[in-house]
């Protein structure tokens, strides 16, 4: 199946397929990426990082590069996925292509630069040259290699030094879902310069149920003292496949707040990797996955403590119903130099059915001697004592179960800083569990 992608790549480069844009170094980078992919092939379950997730459903299917959407997507189509303030800057991509009409990048606050990758080659060449593909390496990751070979469009966000941007930038990837077996390769870059502050919201949604593949890579750069909140909402079609890489690099005293919210896709895999490469920086990685039926949801997080005096806080929660399968693999890696590391990691899971299952593997790898690190994982069902407490106040058994399930999720949603986003996700979650 690797062959198909290599052939597609030949066609992709031959017919111009968007490759006309971009600097001179790009075609050779794409070539090395596709070569690397053909060497690596798709990961198998022998690969430790893929032990609990088989990519066979992706590898065995022939995906084609998504053509331009067969029909126009109207603003009304996006209403179910739009929230927050209409003034929020918004970039919309339909089947991987930037849609200027659905986007809104006018009246941007001072210090915020937002564009799409295709335009950015012209408008922000230096920024791309400096950072794009520098954060997310493809040498050991077949999906990132594929994304690098085929990347065509995505969001580019730049936050100027000292700029504090209130309004979140909403980047929305919409699949029309009219045909099966299409693939898109969104590629995003966010650079938060020295002492800046911003929020980026990345949504993946679908207008219809189809078995398409989203293979996305986001590279986030936090310069000294920057604070970046990155919220990823994976609400793909329940037949779709989603592989997403969020790669972060952090300088001194920066703070990364990452949230991964995943309810969609038949099979999804989200990697969140951050490198704490400057003293005093920290990362807060949180997430919530809620699946049902035959869905498979996999999260892999890696926090690399490279320099001394860095911290990480991580809480991932999962609610699994039906015959769904969840995977959480959280690694905290403390380099020898990273003394005074303060790391906390927790993964809690709630199983709502006998057939649901979870594989959770929190891991600490510590090579420094003066650190404080804890980790833990729980798998459980609803608490009988809490159920009785609620019932003893007159709340029906069914409603008590709904509320407790919601509460389990709300506990981690509370950590989202931007109120409008938190409210929206709380409402989605409440609707999911209440009838």
């Amino acid at each position, binding site marked *: 199946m690797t062959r198909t992608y290599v052939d597609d790549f030949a066609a992709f480069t031959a017919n111009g397929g968007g490759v006309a844009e971009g600097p001179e170094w790009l075609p050779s980078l794409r070539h090395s990426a596709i070569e690397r992919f053909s060497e690596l092939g798709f990961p198998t379950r022998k690969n430790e990082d893929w032990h609990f997730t088989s990519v066979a459903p992706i590898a065995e299917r022939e995906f084609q590069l998504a053509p331009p959407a067969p029909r126009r997507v109207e603003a009304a189509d996006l209403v179910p996925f739009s929230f927050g303030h209409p003034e929020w800057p918004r970039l919309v991509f339909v089947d991987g292509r930037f849609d200027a009409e659905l986007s809104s990048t006018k009246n941007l606050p001072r210090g915020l630069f937002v564009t799409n990758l295709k335009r950015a080659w012209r408008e922000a060449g230096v920024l791309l040259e400096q950072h794009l593909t520098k954060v997310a390496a493809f040498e050991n990751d077949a999906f990132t290699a594929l994304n690098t070979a085929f990347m065509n469009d995505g969001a580019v966000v730049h936050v100027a030094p000292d700029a504090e941007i209130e309004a979140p930038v909403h980047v929305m990837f919409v699949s029309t879902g009219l045909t099966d077996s299409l693939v898109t390769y969104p590629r995003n870059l966010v650079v938060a310069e020295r002492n800046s502050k911003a929020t980026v919201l990345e949504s993946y949604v679908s207008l219809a149920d189809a078995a398409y593949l989203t293979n996305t890579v986001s590279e986030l750069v936090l310069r000294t003292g920057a604070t970046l909140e990155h919220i990823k909402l994976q609400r793909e079609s329940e037949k779709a496949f989603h592989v997403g890489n969020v790669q972060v690099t952090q300088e001194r005293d920066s703070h990364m707040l990452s949230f991964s919210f995943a309810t969609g896709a038949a099979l999804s895999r989200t990697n969140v990797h951050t490198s704490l490469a400057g003293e005093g920086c920290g990362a807060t990685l949180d997430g919530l996955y809620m699946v049902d039926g035959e869905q498979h949801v996999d999260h892999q997080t890696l926090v690399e403590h490279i320099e001394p005096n860095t911290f990480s806080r991580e809480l991932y929660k999962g609610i699994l119903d039906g015959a769904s399968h969840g995977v959480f693999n959280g690694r905290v890696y403390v380099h020898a130099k990273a003394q005074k590391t303060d790391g906390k990691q927790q993964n809690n899971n709630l199983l709502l059915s006998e057939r649901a299952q979870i594989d959770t593997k929190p891991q600490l790898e510590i090579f420094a001697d003066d650190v404080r690190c804890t980790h833990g994982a729980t798998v459980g069902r609803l608490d009988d004592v*809490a159920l009785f407490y609620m019932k*003893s106040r*007159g709340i029906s058994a069914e409603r008590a179960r709904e509320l407790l399930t919601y509460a389990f999720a709300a506990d981690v949603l509370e950590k989202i800083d931007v109120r409008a986003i938190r409210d929206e996700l709380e409402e989605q979650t409440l609707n999911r569990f209440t009838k």
Partner: protein
Amino acid sequence: MLIIKDLHARVAGTEDREILKGIDLTVNAGEVHAVMGPNGSGKSTLAQVLAGNPAYEVTGGSAVLDGQDLLEMDPEVRAQTGVFMAFQYPVEIPGVSNAYFLRTAYNEIRKSKGLEEVDPLEFLDIMEEQLALVDMDPAMLERSVNAGFSGGEKKRNEILQMAVLRPRLSILDETDSGLDIDALRIVAEGVNKLKRPDSATIVVTHYQRLLNYIVPDFVHVLSAGRIVKSGGKELALELEAKGYEWVEQKEEALA
């Protein structure tokens, strides 16, 4: 109003010996009954069994409230019928706000009576009236149910729930445990103000202290799963002076 006859119970799902070994108790509207006893006497079990805690299994006897068989009802139906137990250890529910929790309970009880549900704004008025009763900061309503509350705050929160839900039968399960004197006074004053001619209260306690503030009409002493002595409020003082050995020995003498 409440008639308990020869009530027996044990921990559910076990073949353990019974904790309640034949309780007889009648409570009329307007009355306050204190149930006292040493640790392990079964007084908390009695409260839990009346509230319908599934951790206990009734092995015999009956409990009838206003002619309805309590023991046949699920806990939520008992609550909808008018039973309220203030927990000794109120449960923390991170992620559900106090206001939302209490409004849900209030509306479920209204629904069971065929009444219209109240909206959040109306409910806020209802709650605000009761907040002063337990000297509680309105900000507590937005916090998760009991999460991170101090011992005193948790007990006050129980009384707030009781005030809002207006039960016909209130059972205070060792509400005084772990309370300092100020918190104890606030809780007791709340309970006193909530007394109505058509409702009754059962106060389960180890110590006489709480009864200085909530004055009972009747005092019952439990020992080894049975009521071994009943009397007026002076019985509590007598117990305080003589200790539980007094009734326990008496029981041995009887046996």
